[in-house]
């Protein structure tokens, strides 16, 4: 195993595990604001309790996000030193801004939100929830700005010592690539939040306890779910895809498994790309669909991998292709399920439609998979570049850190995170099974463990 591969796996593993937590906190942050706003407007204590319950889930996720997030910032220096040395002046900026503008805000108000309800007025407590939400979304923004510059470098100059320097601060922050990616990514986080809330609601109704809360969670979760799972496809996914096609033709060709340049390119629904033969095995293809999706006309020419020099092909082509297809396939399922659930909710049939409740319950892991696959699509599509068109991945890792030392700490992280995963599952399971504080009117017994 080469040092380059170890360092890539190191970052990929730790970031993938890390992003399981923020995607929920960012989505849930918004939904908690909804719960608190209803509570504030109606004065209904039940919505406050619902918010408190999700606040506890948020808090656990936040802590796991923080402890797995600290390694991410460090790894730029530890595992990607040569990259950090030349790019620090540019992407060190949004990374530092994340700390300064978001983490202080988020942690301060989360402390108030979770521990300070008795010490704050109702309005101030609502405001804390809003600030936690704002903080988590600012945090996401700066991370996307960082990634967007690596995907689509803008507003930079190169100093004589090889370092990149920012030419325009605002162009860096408002990189069009970043704005599209941000819209798509944050919608993805809301999809996760909405599915998790819906699944817990469905769980309570299927179990036949805490039904009042189950209904609240379904109302909020399915409403947010139907909006976000449509927005994730159109316009955010659509626009982002078109932008990728324009600036990273190699990535689009790899994602779609398009080996040959075609007019009227088809879209492969299922099939396995074969790098040896340059064909898709066992293909199921929708004719002309790819040309239409990218250019709005069925006859447009889409650049295939044959027009791209072999040394600029995405390095993990099949994985890129599968990641993209998993994301897109699951995205379709989200929209279908949420539209059906929203329809049932509107017809007041959702609470008793057991098949829909089961589908919602069982679907909760899928947005995590889709968000992960989406990020893999973005980052594998960028390969073999670390900074697109400017610096190759092979030029960026720390060459003072040997493959053996890298493997040592990668294995360490794997062990530690396996333990973390188990602990997290236990904690969340206990929170969900004990549920929000029962409403006085409801004469149900909460399971005593």
């Amino acid at each position, binding site marked *: 195993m080469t040092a380059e591969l170890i360092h890539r796996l190191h970052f990929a593993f730790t970031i993938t595990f890390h992003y399981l937590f923020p995607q929920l906190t960012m989505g849930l942050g918004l939904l908690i604001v909804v719960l608190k706003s209803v509570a504030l407007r109606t004065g209904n204590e039940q919505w406050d309790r619902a918010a408190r319950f999700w606040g506890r889930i948020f808090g656990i996720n936040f802590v796991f996000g923080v402890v797995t997030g600290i390694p991410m910032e460090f790894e730029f220096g530890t595992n990607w030193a040569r990259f950090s040395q030349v790019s620090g002046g540019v992407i060190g900026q949004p990374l530092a801004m994340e700390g*300064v503008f978001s983490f202080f805000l988020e942690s301060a108000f989360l402390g108030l939100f979770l521990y300070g309800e008795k010490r704050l007025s109702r309005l101030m407590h609502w405001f804390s929830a809003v600030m936690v939400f704002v903080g988590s979304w600012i945090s996401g923004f700066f991370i996307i700005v960082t990634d967007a510059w690596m995907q689509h470098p803008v507003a930079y100059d190169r100093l004589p010592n090889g370092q990149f*320097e920012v030419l325009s601060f605002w162009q860096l922050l408002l990189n069009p690539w970043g704005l599209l990616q941000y819209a798509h990514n944050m919608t993805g986080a809301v999809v996760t939040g909405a599915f998790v809330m819906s699944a817990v609601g469905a769980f309570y109704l299927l179990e036949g306890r805490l039904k009042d809360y189950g209904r609240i969670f379904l109302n909020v979760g399915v409403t947010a779910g139907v909006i976000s799972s449509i927005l994730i496809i159109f316009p955010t996914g659509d626009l982002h895809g078109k932008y990728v096609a324009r600036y990273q033709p190699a990535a689009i060709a790899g994602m779609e498994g398009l080996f040959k340049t075609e007019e009227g390119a088809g879209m492969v629904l299922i099939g396995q790309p074969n790098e040896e033969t340059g064909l898709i095995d066992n293909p199921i293809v929708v004719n002309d669909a790819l040309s239409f999706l990218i250019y709005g006309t069925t006859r447009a020419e889409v650049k295939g991998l044959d027009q791209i020099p072999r040394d600029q092909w995405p390095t993990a082509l099949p994985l890129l292709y599968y990641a993209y297809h998993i994301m897109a396939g699951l995205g379709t399922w989200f929209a279908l399920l949420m539209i059906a659930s929203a329809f049932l909710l509107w017809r007041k049939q959702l609470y008793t439609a057991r098949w829909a409740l089961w589908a919602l319950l069982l679907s909760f892991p899928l947005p995590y998979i889709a968000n992960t696959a989406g990020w893999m699509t973005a980052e594998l599509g960028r390969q073999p570049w670390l900074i697109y068109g400017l610096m190759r991945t092979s030029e960026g890792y720390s060459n003072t850190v040997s493959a053996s030392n890298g493997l040592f700490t990668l294995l360490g992280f794997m062990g530690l995170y396996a333990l973390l995963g188990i602990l997290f599952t236990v*904690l969340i399971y206990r929170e969900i099974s004990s549920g929000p504080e029962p409403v006085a009117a409801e004469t149900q017994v909460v399971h005593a463990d």
Partner: protein
Amino acid sequence: MGFIWFWLVAVMIVGYVVLDGFDLGVGVLHLLLPRSEQERRSILASIGPVWDGNEVWLLAGGGTLYFAFPLLYASAFSGFYLPLMIVLWLLVLRGVCLELRNHIELGMWKGLLDSLFGLSSALLTIFFGAALANVLRGVPLQADGYFFLPLWTNWKPGIHPGILDWYTVIGGLVALVALTLHGALWLTIKASGALAERARRLVSPLWAALVALTLASLAATIVVRPASLGNYFQYPLTFIVPVGVVASLAAIWLLNRGAQPLKAFLCSCLYLFFMLAGACWGLYPTLLPATTGADRDITLLRAISGPHTLAVGLVWWAFGMALAVAYVVFVYSKFRGKVDLPGSAH
């Protein structure tokens, strides 16, 4: 510009040490002080609302270092690879122990988690102290500005030292004792009754140990890196820093005896500030000295980012940190006073 950013990064480090320092110290004391479950919970509740905010200083400081001095960030982080990864694991472990402790009734696991929490806190203080000592001592920089240090070699500071040698171990012990003392003073403010009294009585032996270790570390630094006195002799007025170290130590003793816990705690903050500022001033304008020859030192000029980056950075940094300080003040004022436990009599 380089001068400004050097001290801004130093401010972030001081902010981290002063704030997360008492969390870590409280973690160490969690092993020693409490006699009942109620007291354990009081100790944890005293840092519950603030510890992750305090840890943010580490992230924000790291980010600031990253964009202001990319070469230093790249070189030091990859060179100190192994100890940094261990620090990360300890931070993860500590955060998770704390979180588990807050959320569920643990039964037989409680004792284990308490030990892990205390142990990881103690090891973190030692690693942070040793890290600072490593920077003061210097590392075997290659001509390209990079290096890689093993955890230990022959335990002597020389041209090819390890992370741990007799000098950096002293640094680690200073940090362990200083932050434990810092945590004890925090508890004298936040805890009540017998617990606060026990914390107050623990201050004296910790203080005595800290005085001895502080003097030992100052002497050892002069032996290991005589050049660190250069700035002081060039600008004799700056000897006020070591004087400040001694004065704040004396004040901690007096104020703790005079039962003025808040003031004693603030003097402990001052002590940490003077120790760190003194170390930074001993280095300036070197950021990371080389044991392999002064011409290989990573200096401020060599590591600094481009001028435009830094100018823009100054604007948002000042704005953002003003906001951050406002949040910190707001949160601490909301949680001021003794800890109140849910379910405890009030």
